[in-house]
């Protein structure tokens, strides 16, 4: 009997799991490559780390309630079956949640932590043994967690792709698509939070996030394209299944809402926002020529131009556009999972 077994709880979980993985990835990457004298980079790493554990924990709760028996979820951890993506995934999720919580704890400001343990009621005083400073472990945790976060992001796609009876899913490209969609969702969520809350920084100080997101969205785009080319050159069952998004029930949501509004439009917005970083030599040329005749001098003036708050307006980087692009990316991330979960289950070998 043909039924759609995995529905919105699974869609939400796939998105939230990917979002956490993306947040951790971006935070860890920033922590590993940031300069010590750049407070904005440290801020990105801190906010990413503090946000990362929660979406995946919420997602896992949703997963548990999707089971036939929520109270039997522990049975997933009495077995390890390497052939089952779900078994590997459950263990990977636990590992990831553990690492990301520890990493987040390492980013809690010292004062806040001390205050928390100070205020504990008498009966919970024993918890003070956890009042340790994990901050020196940030970098080792970032290194250890990077492959785990990539694993969590990829596995959500492998979970679907490893099913040979659903031709819509049965390609490695689904895992790659979910990976880059997850990483870009993490980036976008950080941009959103920073744009709405971190008023002490200018948006251009978060340009590394834009660059990462543009890269992830570009990669995502160039995975969707071969997904269709390869699918159309594949066996009949795959071609048949692609009709679900090429004239079938998911056509509009895929092409207009995911590809158009959730991928290409935010990509364009973000490219427009970061374009001055690459086009400065055009805009700044007259001033540079006036200031310094040498090439070395020109590059210095570009750098000072970038770090000077007065030039922020010329460099676009508006909070409004940042919020718009980030929201579109996040909506796209939900939609692509919705489309794949539902369309995949509707596809079959005839």
């Amino acid at each position, binding site marked *: 009997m043909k039924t759609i077994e995995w529905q919105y709880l699974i869609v939400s979980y796939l998105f939230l799991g990917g979002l956490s993985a993306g947040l951790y990835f971006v935070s860890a990457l920033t922590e590993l490559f940031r300069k010590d004298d750049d407070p904005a980079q440290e801020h990105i790493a801190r906010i990413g780390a503090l946000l990362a554990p929660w979406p995946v924990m919420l997602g896992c709760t949703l997963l548990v309630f*999707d*089971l*036939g028996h929520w109270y039997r979820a522990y049975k997933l951890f009495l077995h390890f079956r390497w*052939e089952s993506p*779900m078994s590997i995934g459950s263990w990977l999720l636990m590992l990831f949640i553990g690492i990301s919580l520890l990493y987040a704890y390492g980013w809690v400001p010292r004062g806040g932590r001390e205050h928390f343990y100070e205020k504990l009621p008498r009966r919970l005083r024993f918890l003070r043994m956890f009042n340790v400073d994990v901050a020196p472990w940030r970098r080792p945790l970032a290194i250890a967690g990077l492959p785990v976060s990539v694993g969590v992001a990829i596995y959500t796609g492998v979970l679907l792709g490893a099913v040979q*009876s659903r031709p819509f899913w049965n390609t490695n490209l689904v895992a790659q698509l979910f990976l880059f969609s997850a990483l870009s969702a993490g980036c976008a969520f950080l941009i959103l939070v920073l744009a709405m809350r971190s008023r002490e920084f200018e948006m251009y100080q978060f340009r590394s996030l834009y660059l990462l997101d543009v890269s992830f969205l570009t990669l995502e785009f160039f995975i969707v394209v071969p997904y269709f080319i390869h699918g159309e050159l594949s066996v009949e069952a795959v071609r048949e299944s692609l009709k679900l998004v090429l004239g079938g029930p998911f056509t509009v949501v895929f092409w207009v809402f995911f590809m158009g509004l959730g991928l290409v439009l935010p990509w364009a917005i973000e490219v427009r926002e970061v374009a001055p970083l690459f086009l400065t030599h055009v805009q700044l040329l007259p001033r540079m020529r006036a200031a310094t005749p040498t090439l070395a001098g020109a590059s210095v003036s570009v750098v000072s131009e970038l770090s000077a708050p007065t030039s922020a307006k010329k460099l676009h980087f508006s909070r409004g556009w940042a919020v718009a692009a980030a929201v579109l990316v996040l909506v796209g991330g939900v939609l692509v999972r919705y489309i794949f979960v539902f369309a995949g289950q509707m596809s079959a070998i005839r």
Partner: protein
Amino acid sequence: MATRTKRYALAIDAKKCIDCKACVVACRAENGVPVGKSRNWINEELHGDWPKLMAVFEPEQCHHCEDPACVRVCPTGASYQRPDGVVAINSSECVGCRYCMIACPYDARFFREDLGVVEKCDLCAHRLDRGELPACVETCPSKVRVFGDLNDPTSEIHQLLEKRQYRVKKHEAGTGPQIYYLL
């Protein structure tokens, strides 16, 4: 698999099927299948144009694949394959994630909302263990179904498949289905 001593399988002579659904009813009674769900079913296809019409009835159920996708994806090992080839479910280990339902190319599984577990045909494993035939095989009035051990050269199914041509469904799914439809 070469090491199996037994390999239970089912041969179906669909031309004999009259769509009486006795097999479905027998299964329901034997295994307590709730109304609205089915461990076995009869596919109905109409061929030709009026007035020259032909109806083809083709019983189907779990194919007890040699390399079952459901067993592979099961995270707890609740879905398993017995040494005689029967693919069965250990309900007490099933968490109800329904990954197996999605992995099955034949959509042979269903979810029991009341019990929170997945169920499907297990060729009446409890009857096999008593030396009896599956309920659907025993009850079929037009002898559509032939059940037996493929590894036993004297069994009816072995001899039938030696003489008659047959096909399996969705061979390309690569799971090695063990319901043989006689041509």
